[in-house]
């Protein structure tokens, strides 16, 4: 999107957000009020292999006006969670609150929450205009007003020129925009997005990410975004909830999740990770491969962990430091010794894999222009070190 287009697009957006009757989440519930609250929600489905628990005792608060993502692998229950918020799926137990009011027993059409479906679910027998107008018709908005608001919504996604087209005549990205326009035109208090970008190619996906963020900012809407793509979730969200097998593992800002993952699952799901097996000694952790790599780790150790407990030291590849040649002899602080088994050049960065024990390999990314990257030879000796503050102790 060019600058010029963005400017013209922002005019109707402001108009949409500033009108008095707009249900602005902040104004309705006050700042930081919960737009969505799930309390001990559980859901199971009866499948061919018996009853399968899909969502397990889920408790979650989504603030008004925030861009919130549910992140997890397929089958982790994130889409089911979204559908329960939409009212398209009944909960087995627990309560759902929307804007502070109990909405657990409300039907989908009675909830002021709209969904953008993964395959868009545009009505094939209606024109783009009538698709977008559908929700307004249900609210008995009068004709002139309806046409104006449909126009605004279409302008917001740059699709005014396609008002009289049928959905089948549009490309995937265009259909995506129509689906978006259709669900924001009624000004819901929460917009639910079920992997809306999954079907788009990479370039289109990136531009739609920006567009979604812009819309969310301008309309001051609460977005709940479901995705299995960590980069997508991080690029767009204020906060991310990582889900695994029907439970929520961790909620936090992208930075928190990346730098301070709560469990091993989060570390592997979010970026690349290195684990160094270790055991806790007198409040300090000794990494097994090299007993010298010891003392300062205590700074990062969980004080409550029992002495002798088996743990893992977790460090991101870009936080590990590679030392080869003479400089490796004089390394201070935590370190492990190993053999270089692989080296992959990928532009600015070079990835080096170091085997520090028969079953433990560490991945180190280093600047391709550095002497380490140059001197790292396959089969050569190396020392891997890190700053204690960059390491996190995790359960084995």
């Amino acid at each position, binding site marked *: 999107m060019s600058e010029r287009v963005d400017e013209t697009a922002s005019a*109707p957006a402001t108009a949409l957000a500033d009108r008095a009757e707009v249900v602005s989440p902040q104004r309705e519930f006050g700042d930081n009020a919960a737009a969505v609250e799930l309390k001990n929600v559980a859901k199971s489905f009866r499948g061919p292999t018996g009853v399968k628990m899909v969502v397990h005792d889920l408790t979650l608060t989504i603030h008004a006006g925030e861009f919130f993502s549910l992140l997890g692998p397929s089958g982790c229950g994130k889409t089911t969670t979204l559908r329960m918020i939409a009212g398209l799926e009944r909960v087995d137990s627990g309560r759902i609150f929307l804007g502070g009011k109990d909405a657990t027993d409300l039907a989908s059409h009675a909830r002021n929450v709209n969904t953008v479906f993964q395959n868009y679910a545009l009505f094939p027998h209606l024109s783009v205009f009538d698709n977008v107008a559908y929700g307004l018709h249900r609210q008995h908005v009068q004709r002139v007003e309806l046409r104006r608001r449909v126009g605004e919504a279409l302008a917001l996604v740059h699709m005014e020129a396609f008002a009289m087209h049928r959905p089948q005549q549009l490309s995937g990205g265009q259909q995506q925009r129509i689906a978006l326009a259709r669900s924001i035109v009624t000004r819901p208090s929460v917009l639910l997005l079920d992997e809306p970008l999954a079907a788009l190619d990479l370039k289109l996906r990136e531009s739609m990410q920006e567009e979604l963020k812009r819309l969310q900012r301008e309309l001051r809407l609460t977005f709940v975004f479901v995705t299995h793509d960590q980069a997508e979730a991080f690029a767009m969200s204020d906060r991310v909830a990582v889900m695994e097998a029907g439970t929520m593992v961790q909620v936090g800002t992208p930075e928190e999740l990346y730098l301070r993952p709560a469990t091993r699952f989060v570390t592997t799901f979010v970026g690349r990770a290195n684990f160094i097996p270790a055991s806790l000694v007198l409040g300090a952790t000794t990494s097994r491969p090299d007993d010298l790599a010891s003392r300062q780790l205590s700074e990062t150790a969980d004080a409550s962990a029992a002495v002798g407990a088996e743990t893992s030291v977790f460090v991101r590849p870009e936080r590990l430091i590679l030392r080869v040649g003479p400089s490796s002899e004089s390394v201070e602080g935590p370190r492990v010794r190993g053999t270089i088994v692989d080296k992959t050049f990928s532009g600015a960065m070079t990835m080096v894999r170091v085997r520090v024990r028969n079953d433990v390999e560490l991945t180190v990314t280093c600047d391709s222009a550095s002497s380490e990257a140059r001197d790292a030879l396959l089969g050569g000796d190396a020392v891997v070190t890190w700053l204690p503050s960059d390491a996190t102790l995790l359960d084995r």
Partner: protein
Amino acid sequence: MRGFVGLTYVWFALWFLAPGAIMLLYAFGHTAAFNQQGLVNLNHLGLSNFFEALRYPSGPVLVASLENAVLATALCGVIAYPVAYFIARKLGPRVRTIVLLLVVLPFWTDYLLRMIGWRIFLSPLGLLYGAMHAVGWHVGYLTILDTRGAVMIGLVYNYIPLFILPLAVVLERIDPLLLQAADDLGAKPWTIFRTITFPISMAGVVAGTVLVFVPMLGDYVTPTLMGGARGLMIGSLVASEFTEGQNWSLGAAMAILLVVILVGIVVTIWLLATGVRYARAQQRKRTLAREWATR
């Protein structure tokens, strides 16, 4: 493969187009005199057979046939829609297959046998009479048979599977996500049906209507068997002109007239629908162009 496809065209031309062309030619001729060769005299072609076909008795019978076919098709639609909806939406995939099989099951029995079965069932002191008697509904004797009502029963019974099947297929194929999207946008169940399910299912309704209406209009066995003398439909007259009447050119003219009326009805409805839709779209385009430009 190409040769095979070509062969199907030859087959089609041989058994559909050629007989059709011969019929069309015959319709303009007139019956040969006894001392002439063949059955149809093609020396003096003219439209007289068509005027003859529109006169008594075939003219009024044609109108009555159209009435019967329209009414029976409408009845088929009204009965078939809920049945198809139930089959497509309320049944699991397994049960659905079985029920669809049951819908077409009567076709496995001989047609005449089924019609005679209906005659026995509806006869003045027959099975239906007995059943009514048993539940305490006393009537002198049943007078359904050999009336237009009986023709209607026969037509609907015979053709309704052809309405149910395409409709059930179309209804089954409607993506449930569309209904959820409508629900999500604030539509109550009846509104979802009115605005989403029904308009999308129109393709099935049209297919069912054509499949049922066209053969119904030409049917002459069912009306004869169920309606007797009062069940006379244009198909019966066409058949009798070719057989007892030995007036092939008049029979051909009636048949051609039937085809022309059918095509005329379909084309008119299609033109009207398309025209109205186009006019509305243009109207909206103008309105939007005017309103959106001034913003």
